[in-house]
């Protein structure tokens, strides 16, 4: 089946991101495709390029990037939720007169309408909330 996950919880403050990652790997192990993960609300912090947790702790941002690299999972971030929280790609940073990009390049900024599209194009959409 074609799965999508919605992550509403920020990393290291709630279990949502951990649960979603473990679900993604379990679904793939059962032969499903996890085509899209959509990050919304505080979940957008999962896309923080400058996240640098201690080396002996799980690196959630890297784990999402691995999922994207290994299984082709699209990592989509609500642009409005991201900009409010200081997560900007190079284009948005320039548009707002800021230097540097704080969004991890494996993630893409997209509109909330994309979430509605995901609900119609994927066979299952599972929400992981804080």
């Amino acid at each position, binding site marked *: *089946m074609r*799965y999508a996950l919605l992550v509403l919880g920020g990393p290291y403050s709630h*279990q*949502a991101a951990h*649960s979603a990652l*473990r*679900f993604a*790997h*379990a*679904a793939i*192990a*059962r032969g*499903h495709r996890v085509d899209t993960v959509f990050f919304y609300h505080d979940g957008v912090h999962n896309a923080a390029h400058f996240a640098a947790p201690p080396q002996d702790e799980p690196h959630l941002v890297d784990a999402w990037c691995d999922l994207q690299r290994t299984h082709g999972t699209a990592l989509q971030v609500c642009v409005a939720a991201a900009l409010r929280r200081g997560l900007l790609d190079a284009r948005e940073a320039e548009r707002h007169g800021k230097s540097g990009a704080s969004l991890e390049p494996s993630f893409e900024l997209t509109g909330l309408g994309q979430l509605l599209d995901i609900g119609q194009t994927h066979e*299952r*959409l*599972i*929400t*992981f*909330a*804080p």
Partner: protein
Amino acid sequence: MLLHLLNRAPSSSSVHQDVLRAMGEEDGLMLIEDGVFGAVSAQVQHFPGLEGRLFALREDLESRGLAGRCDASVTIVDMDGFVALTEEAQRTVSWF
């Protein structure tokens, strides 16, 4: 048939009451994260009438030291079993 996901303990949130009111007769309830506190024998009375339709995630029980305290009426599933339940359900509803 819907699969409801609950990640709140019945002792810290009353959202489980909303879940019970919303559940259809065939629906299943999957307890994850802090929701698994509701699977222990002293708490499971908060989920009456769900025999055979109440599930708890093994990894979340174990990480909270509750693996041996889960009530016999609750079906323990691992992450693979969780995915299987989402296959069977038409869709899932998350409560938090």
